[in-house]
């Protein structure tokens, strides 16, 4: 077990190094000279200013050295300054990351609350009406563009019924009730994007577990069906879900990129899109690196958690 955990950690290191490499290479793909592209809106630079800027940004060094310099900065949380606002990137991340995490965790919790019970019911009554309805919703949910769902929800809940706000965001530390009100629509849409995958996973794992011998034993000794399902089967059925949650972290963020844009939520997704459109490369690099890092860590935690929780797995 300890061997597996150590190995899994070691495996993550080259991946993380490659991630920094890919992230940094994005700047090299940018056509033309970075200084010219980044500061073209500020009018022409004198050769002297340009020279200074180049030195200041470290662009007068060789590309490998620049890369090392960037990684050094990234490891200490220093990602340089935004070319748009001239603010330190770390400051921008400091305000937007908590917003994204708050919405992301809310969305994930809602998705789990919807997907696990519906997955269990589908597996306990396979091919029943409720199973079929859930299946249709799950198939439709995967294909549903989140902006289409957002439009329909805004039209119905915000414009027609006027019960929920269409845009805005309140931090949970300011006012939990208001925060919830503002998070319901974006959170539901976010949850709708990932719960089909979770639901299918729970359903198939539960079907598999319910075929096991120990379940037959539990039934044979006279336990009620729901006791068998909830106390004997559920724990084993939920184990593989841990891995899937790890894989869904990236998907969750992809959803946030679009949803934060629609609902005017000042999170990292919005920062990222703004930086992309303005070609604010220090911010793009930092957000991309942070997202990829979080995905790697989430998968690492999921894999190790799975190994720790399932004693049948020996590596």
């Amino acid at each position, binding site marked *: 077990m300890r061997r597996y955990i150590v190995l899994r950690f070691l495996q993550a290191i*080259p*991946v993380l190094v*490659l*991630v920094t*490499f*890919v992230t940094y290479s*994005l*700047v090299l*793909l*940018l*056509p033309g000279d970075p200084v010219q592209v980044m500061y073209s809106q500020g009018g022409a630079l004198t050769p002297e200013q340009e020279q200074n800027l180049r030195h200041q940004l470290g662009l007068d060094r060789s590309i490998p050295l620049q890369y090392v310099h960037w990684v050094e900065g990234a490891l200490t949380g220093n990602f340089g300054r935004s070319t748009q606002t001239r603010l330190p990137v770390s400051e921008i991340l400091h305000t937007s990351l908590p917003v994204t995490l708050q919405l992301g965790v809310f969305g994930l919790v809602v998705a789990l609350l919807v997907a696990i019970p519906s997955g269990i019911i589908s597996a306990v009554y396979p091919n029943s009406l409720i199973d079929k309805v859930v299946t249709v919703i799950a*198939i*439709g949910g*995967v*294909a*549903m*563009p*989140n*902006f*289409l769902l957002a*439009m*329909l929800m*805004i*039209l119905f809940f915000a*414009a027609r019924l006027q019960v929920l706000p269409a845009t805005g965001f309140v931090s949970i530390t300011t006012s939990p009730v208001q925060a919830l009100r503002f998070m319901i629509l974006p959170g539901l849409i976010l949850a709708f994007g990932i719960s089909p995958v979770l639901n299918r996973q729970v359903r198939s794992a539960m079907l598999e577990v319910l075929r096991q011998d120990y379940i037959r034993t539990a039934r044979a000794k006279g336990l009620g069906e729901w006791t068998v399902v909830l106390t004997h089967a559920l724990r084993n059925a939920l184990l593989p879900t841990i891995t899937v949650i790890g894989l869904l972290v*990236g*998907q969750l*963020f*992809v959803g946030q*990129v*679009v949803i934060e*844009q*629609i609902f005017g939520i000042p999170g990292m997704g919005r920062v*990222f*899109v703004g930086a*992309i*459109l303005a*070609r604010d490369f220090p911010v*793009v690099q930092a957000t*991309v690196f942070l*997202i*990829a*890092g979080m*995905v*790697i860590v989430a*998968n690492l935690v999921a894999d190790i958690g799975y190994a720790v929780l399932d004693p049948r797995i020996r590596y």
Partner: protein
Amino acid sequence: MSENPIDTKGAEINGFVVRKPPSRLVIAFRFFRHLLSVRLAGFALVVILVTVIMAAFAPFLAPHDPTFAGPDPLASPSMTNLLGTDQLGRDVLSQLIYGARIALAVSTGAILFGTVVGGLLGLVSGYFRGVLDAVVMRVVDALVAFPGLILALALASALGPSVKTVIIAIGVANVPWIARIARSEALTIRESQYVLSAYALGATAPRIILRHVLPNALAPILVQSTLGMGYAVLSAAALSFLGAGIPPPTPDWGSMVQFSFGLLNQDPLLSIVPGVAIFLLVLAFNLLGDAFRDVFDPRVRGSLS
């Protein structure tokens, strides 16, 4: 044992019934019949066929020039503009018909790119194993860490907005997933007797990979590719919606949603209609991918022959 010659009903040799293999046409027919028997596969094929027809015959089907700004902006649906016009007076139906071209071009282009690059990477590294495999797979792991749309957005902004950029950006995002599947297939297939036989006959590695490993790894790759096409349509739409996708005035469903999104409360149909088109095409690709999986699954395959 049996009096029947092999080429009519099959012969029994050592307890095995040996039949002449059916012709390719017969196999194709059975495959298609089996495919259509999968739930909703017919619906999926119809949606895809309609989209292909819209794309292929757009100039004949579209009642107006999709980029022409007419005299009547924000018109309600009428006989001249069946789905109304947008705020520039462009005919919505015509844009929708022409938009099918971009949707299909982007999804096929991106998946072709992802499947060829990812498939080759996966097959080669799975076949040779060793250091090459370890290196390729760590690169794939690193690529997987970038969520598809994030990588596509970053690439699209680095390369500048164009149809080609969107295809490459989404294609790259598909490479690691195809590579993983191709590799795991190659790992199994390389241990098979027929690969050993080919090797013993002196076949070169490229020949073994292309003639023996590839055809046997094709089914799961095709399933993943078809599902990937749906995801490519969604990603392309999201890119356009965020303003980093297909540049105007090329008619594109995602751009249509984005262009009229500000008018959601006054004229919701302008963004909902192209949104529904995206939904239907993605749904169709997903259902077709599921149907392929059902047909190719060895546990189901028995009913094919």
